[in-house]
């Protein structure tokens, strides 16, 4: 019993210490922007890394999500004679939940893993120490541009996901199953309010900041992984970053939704 209590206590303390370390890391990275030189160039590169490179996958997933929503929604709604509100169903599901959550998970899978691995390799090969000895703030150089890029990339990709998803819903609901296109698009137009768009973009912003900060932190602390070192530490850090960022996305989604609904 005492051993169990000790293990629980130690793990709880480690979790609290880890959260504190992460919060300090994120805060320091966020406030490093004014002192970072040539931030613009690195920011553009980070926007390309998170935005442009993830856009095709986001659009493909968005299209299939919309297609599936259109199919499932049509058959369920048709049972109750409400196929006409398919546009409402697809648009609200996408705008309020699926686009920000799935979009964030896709970006984490593609860009987040790359970020964690790249920073982990920087740590592994002493490049982060080299930055410090050159008088360059590693957080400002490696993390700040990526956090700022998330503020742009996540909302834009979420909007792209929503647009393509709505088109997917139209394809399956109207073109394949025969619902009138005008009915579908007028339902979309009537359903989506400014508050829904605000919720969608707020979620995208929060998910972007949280997930990119987690992935950066995971790579940055690759040398602190217990029991592993070298390339194994990089791979463990990358996996850890992606898993934590994905879980954090879903947890944050629940919290934001419970506040906004």
């Amino acid at each position: 019993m005492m051993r169990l209590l000790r293990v629980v206590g130690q793990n709880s303390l480690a979790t609290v210490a880890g959260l504190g370390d992460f919060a300090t890391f994120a805060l320091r990275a966020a406030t490093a922007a004014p002192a970072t030189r040539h931030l613009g160039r690195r920011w553009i590169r980070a926007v390309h890394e998170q935005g442009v490179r993830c856009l095709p996958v986001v659009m493909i997933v968005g299209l299939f999500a919309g297609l599936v929503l259109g199919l499932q929604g049509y058959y369920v709604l048709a049972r109750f004679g409400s196929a006409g509100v398919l546009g409402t169903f697809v648009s609200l599901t996408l705008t309020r939940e699926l686009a920000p959550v799935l979009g964030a998970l896709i970006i984490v899978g593609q860009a987040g893993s790359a970020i964690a691995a790249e920073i982990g390799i920087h740590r592994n090969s002493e490049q982060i120490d080299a930055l410090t000895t050159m008088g360059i703030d590693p957080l400002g150089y490696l993390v700040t541009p990526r956090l700022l890029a998330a503020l742009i990339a996540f909302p834009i990709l979420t909007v792209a996901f929503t647009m393509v998803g709505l088109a997917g819903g139209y394809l399956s609901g109207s073109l394949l199953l025969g619902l009138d296109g005008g009915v579908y698009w007028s339902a979309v137009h009537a359903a989506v309010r400014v508050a829904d768009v605000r919720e969608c973009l707020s979620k995208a912003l929060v998910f972007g900041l949280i997930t990119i900060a987690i992935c950066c932190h995971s790579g940055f602390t690759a040398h602190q992984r217990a029991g592993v070192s070298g390339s194994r530490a990089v791979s463990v850090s990358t996996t850890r970053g992606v898993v934590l960022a994905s879980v954090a996305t879903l947890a944050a989604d629940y919290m934001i939704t419970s506040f906004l609904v």
Partner: protein
Amino acid sequence: MIGASLPPILEVSGLRKQFGEHVVLDSVNLVVPRGSIISVLGRSGIGKSVFLKCLAGLLTPDAGEVRFENGRPGRFRRRCSYLFQGNALFDSLTALENVALPLEQTTRFGRREIAQTARDALKSLGLDKFADHFPAQMSGGMQKRLALARALVTRPELVLFDEPTAGLDPPGRNAVFEMIVRDRQRFDFTAVIVTHDVPEALAASDRVALLEEGRIRFEGTAAEFAASDDCIVRSFGDNIVTLRTSLDK
């Protein structure tokens, strides 16, 4: 040769560092005269790199003091450079971009001036033809020179070398020490070299220190090192004789 009479650029007193129960540095005291080359010798794993990282501010000592000549470590450390054992070059940047990086991030030079200064630094170390090469496309010796070019491009006053000859063959080791001595004359910096290449260090350094059991066991000139009666110092100076004696036994 530059002796201990010159004013110190760096003074280390009572430096202590331990990891868990393992005490790596117990009480290290060392004075580094301005403009000198001082080599810190010692067996592998004795804590030489830990000592150097404490000087560079990469590790925080548990006790003791690292005092720079103006007494303000933060500001002085910006005038220090560090040459890492594994070079720590950015593998996704070209040679020119690697050398330009500290100038881009720490100076207010324009783009052209940065590129020209970086090219000059590469040229001074015979790497001007490899400006567009990535570190992985260069040999070990060239990477070492590239790392040195990056360390010297900001004209530092103190350069810390962590095992600069690790993994190099004897001619390569000689070339690196020759480069350090020549560049010291040209760029007027003070060098602290951590190494276990005893003959090269004795030939190239103004002063030599031997780190043993967490303390500086010997500190003096190369001649004093060679003439020392201390058995540990002698085992370093006469390592071939020591090996032969061990084999004869």
